[in-house]
């Protein structure tokens, strides 16, 4: 190869090697695949807790906030747990003096990492999630307990008379 051909090859090498680097000063947007954990906060009537404050506590330091944020209009908030920390994650949601603290167990975190459907796991971590039919049945049972008490004391009174 002549000296002139070597010179042309050296000039063209960067262009041939990586075309993207030629376009300098451009914006770059990267992405990576993660398994985020999404929480949804609702009032007990099912209304989403929109714009509520969220505080996440990591297993390694449960007394210091690991992440803070606010829920969206649907009451949802997503975060990617640190896979190097093993243990339970605490999530606090609060708005106007109302809210709740739940503990997301380690197995739910692991389940989300292995791409299994974790909605059931999360639901089971919070006992407050009942559907309307369950609530009606529970309320009916409670009311019957109070009515039974009332009937019992009424009956006793009748017998005494």
């Amino acid at each position, binding site marked *: 190869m002549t000296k002139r051909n070597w010179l042309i090859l050296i000039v063209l090498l960067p262009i041939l090697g990586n075309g993207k680097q030629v376009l300098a000063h451009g914006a770059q947007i990267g992405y990576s695949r993660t398994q985020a954990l999404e929480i949804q906060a609702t009032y007990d009537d099912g*209304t989403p807790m929109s714009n509520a404050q969220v505080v996440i506590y990591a297993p390694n330091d449960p007394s210091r906030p690991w992440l803070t944020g606010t829920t969206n209009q649907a009451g949802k908030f997503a975060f990617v747990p640190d896979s190097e920390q093993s243990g339970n994650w605490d999530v*606090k949601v*609060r708005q*106007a003096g*109302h809210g*709740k*603290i739940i503990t997301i167990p380690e197995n739910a975190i692991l389940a989300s990492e292995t791409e299994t459907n974790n909605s059931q796991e999360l639901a089971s971590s919070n006992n407050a999630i009942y559907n309307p039919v369950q609530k009606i049945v529970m*309320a009916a049972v409670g009311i019957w307990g109070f009515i039974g008490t*009332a009937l019992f004391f009424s009956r006793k009174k009748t017998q005494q008379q």
Partner: protein
Amino acid sequence: MHIPDGFIPPSLCIAGYALTGGVTWYCLRKINRTTNPTEQIPKASLLTAAFFVASLIHIPLPPSSLHLVLNGMMGTLLGYYAFPAILIGLFFQAVMFQHGGLSTLGVNAAMMGIPALLAYHLFQLRNRINHKKQLWTRILAALAGAVSLGLSALIFVVITITNISQDLNVQTEKNLILFSLVGYLIQALLEGIFTMMLVVFLDKVKPEILKG
């Protein structure tokens, strides 16, 4: 209006239990001194059922949603039975529906129960008034229902504002809690009207229920 678990320090939870324990003892002592302490239990039990389910009736009022409390109505109709009735109702609400919490049961019972006792004494003022008694019965019933709820809301606001975790945006939370007072004021008016309507009905149908 229930304070959930983990939102107030343990010392306040213990103080709440101590206060509730003392007031419960006082109320039971008062009940025990009546001629027939079990006579009012059926009425108390039925009203506890009403109190228990009242928390499931929601009134959407942004940024939060309100639910009926009816502690003023409980105090007006039950007298000293109201406090233990509210305590039992709150216990079942916490266990079954997670309204409030078990660690905060004492604080919640004091917050809703003591204003109920005040409502009772407020309503009993009607016995000292001979002139236009029916009118005063209505006025005092409405006042008992509204003032009791208003006082509970004020206690709730003071407790929650003074115990905002530093992990949160304190100013935002404080503003929201203060804003929620407007909602509680509307709720107090509603519960005052409801208590008055119930008392007027009972006064016509079965006036002996209203005797203190």
